[in-house]
């Protein structure tokens, strides 16, 4: 495929606000997980919470869009100079030539949870000041970001559960390749809400401790929240005065066609996604220096991914899950993994698998138990979601 540059990027998650902050925490092997301290969440679990959302100054002109998810989106846009880089691209190409493709699994549903608690006792009606379309709608996220950035190009929200924001890179690449736009704001935002945390609780997939992906005693996930954004442009076409973050070399996507919430045990769909990403990137398995695993911490997911990674890449390619630091950020987990892997290329390191005491002895892939430093040229970032939706993204240096 035609190589595209991620010419600018930003990430806000439990490990930090901004790429430098997150990279510092990652290299220091410092987890952002904490025991739930959100009074309304009422579940004993560890969370990857982003501080400061409650006090954020939300754009008054867009007050109908005000909800936890769009607050985190706004914080992301304000971080790493991202909105300024988009404004420069809109100036160069025209605001109608910049598309917005973002992933989310639940958008602003926290606002609907509050509205349901405040239903009229007699009529059951939702409160008058609740704006369902501007907060609850999946599209609310893209609508808000387009308005905040004054963009008028095509837009879409991708919602394939936990692979949403990896797929956003795929759909965005094709919009550019088809000539429908010149640049795309790609990203993903998901925030803590009761429905998701209690839903994973009902599936018995929440770890009582901070999640321990790939550990022999792992027992589930810790849920986090994150906003990640990337500005995608044709390679070499971005702002000449600023070095691109990384180059998007390829992607692969597949379905399990197996079960709504359990992975194919051999990771067959995941294998297809990784092989397809390698093929598009024109890379052999031995040219991959690091894999950011989906690695959620559930017994079945991690085992299936290990089977897939070892089948496609063999036993030697260093791989780690970073969800012990960020939590599982669901619809934002794809871009979170892509940007963390990209930081490894930029800064020359491969992060260790966080919260890992002892690698599952049945695993055949090379799970990193210590952080490695040195050149990182090509990486893969995996994301797999409910509905059997798989996506793998290949990055290199710009």
């Amino acid at each position, binding site marked *: 495929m035609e190589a595209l540059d991620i010419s600018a990027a930003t990430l806000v998650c439990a490990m930090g606000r901004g790429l430098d902050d997150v990279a510092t925490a990652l290299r220091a092997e410092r987890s952002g997980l904490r025991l739930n301290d959100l009074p309304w969440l009422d579940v004993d679990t560890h969370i990857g919470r982003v501080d400061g959302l409650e006090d954020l100054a939300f754009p008054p002109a867009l007050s109908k869009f005000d909800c936890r998810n769009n607050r985190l989106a706004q914080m992301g846009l304000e971080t790493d100079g991202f909105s300024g880089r988009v404004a420069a691209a809109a100036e160069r190409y025209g605001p109608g030539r910049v598309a917005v493709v973002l992933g989310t699994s639940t958008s602003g549903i926290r606002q609907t949870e509050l509205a349901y608690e405040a239903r009229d006792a007699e009529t059951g009606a939702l409160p008058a000041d609740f704006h369902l379309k501007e907060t609850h709608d999946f599209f609310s996220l893209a609508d808000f970001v*387009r308005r905040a950035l004054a963009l008028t190009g095509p837009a*879409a929200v991708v*919602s394939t559960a936990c692979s949403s924001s990896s797929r956003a890179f*795929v759909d965005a690449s094709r919009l550019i390749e*088809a*000539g429908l736009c010149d640049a795309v704001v790609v990203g993903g935002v998901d925030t803590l809400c009761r429905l998701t945390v209690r839903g994973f609780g009902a599936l018995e997939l929440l770890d009582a401790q901070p999640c321990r992906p790939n550990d022999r005693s792992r027992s589930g996930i810790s849920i986090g929240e994150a906003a990640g954004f990337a500005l995608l442009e044709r390679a070499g076409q971005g702002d000449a005065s600023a070095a691109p973050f990384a180059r998007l070399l390829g992607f692969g996507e597949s379905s399990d*066609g197996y079960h709504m919430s359990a992975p194919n045990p051999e990771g067959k769909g995941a294998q297809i996604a990784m092989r397809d990403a390698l093929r598009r990137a024109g890379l052999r398995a031995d040219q991959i220096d690091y894999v950011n695993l989906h690695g959620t911490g559930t017994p079945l997911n991690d085992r299936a991914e290990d089977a897939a990674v070892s089948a496609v890449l063999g036993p030697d390619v260093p791989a780690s899950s970073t969800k012990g630091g960020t939590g599982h950020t669901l619809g934002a987990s794809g871009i979170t993994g892509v940007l963390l892997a990209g930081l490894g290329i930029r800064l020359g390191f491969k992060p260790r698998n966080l919260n890992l005491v002892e690698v599952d002895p049945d695993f055949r892939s090379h799970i990193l138990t210590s952080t490695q430093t040195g050149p990182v040229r090509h990486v893969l970032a995996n994301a797999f*979601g409910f509905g059997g939706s798989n996506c793998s993204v290949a990055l290199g240096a710009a």
Partner: protein
Amino acid sequence: MEGFAITGIGVIGPGFESWHDCAGILRGERPYEPADMAIVAPPILSPRERRRASPTVRLALGAAMQAVEQAGQPAGALPAVFGSCHGEGKVTHSLLDALTAPEPVLSPTQFHNSVHNTAAGYWTIAHSSQLPCDSISGGDYSFAATLLIAAAQVVSEQHAMLVVAYDAAMPEPMNSKRPIAGAFGVALVLDLSGAAGAICEVGCASAKADAEWAALANGEINMLAAKNPAARSLALLEPIATGERREVVLGCAPGAFHEWTVRPC
């Protein structure tokens, strides 16, 4: 953008259960009589999945089956893009309602069936398909946004695609806040321009416009398009039904428009 062909169409909506039904009404051969349709779960689902399939999943898969059958494609042989404003509104409402209990207990099955890509997931599971299956929301613009994403894939990957757009009213109290009327599902099989068996060829170019969708000749059908995001597809289906060449403008997001040129074959 390069053009593409449409080789199969499926439609389920208030008062019609197939593209054949819908096309007759769009041609004015008989009056439009809106009626709620009983939408049965397609037989491609296993008995257990048929029981679990929500009304929106049935709607989406029903339309999808019609389109692939007309295109003469084996079901599950195409990469797919599903699109819907709210996805699983009924299941989502049920979970939100359960959360208001003093000690909430959520159904694990309902939870994993609440994701936006539930219909997409059921489609791939029904066929044990490992082909990519995307799930898009464009709010009120979901049909055009989904079509644009799929068309870009046909053009850039040079392969045929299944596109499915479906929307239904959410349960109260949500529907009063954001009214969507009826249950409407549409599916199109897109193929490369010049493909054998094409019903029509379609071109796409960006455009400027004021209206979010091109108004339909039949006022009642136009009302349907006004009240259901997936039913905005009727603006594109009308010239296909009548067999006339026409430029149809659709918004794919607020203030972003494309002109879809329909050339019946």
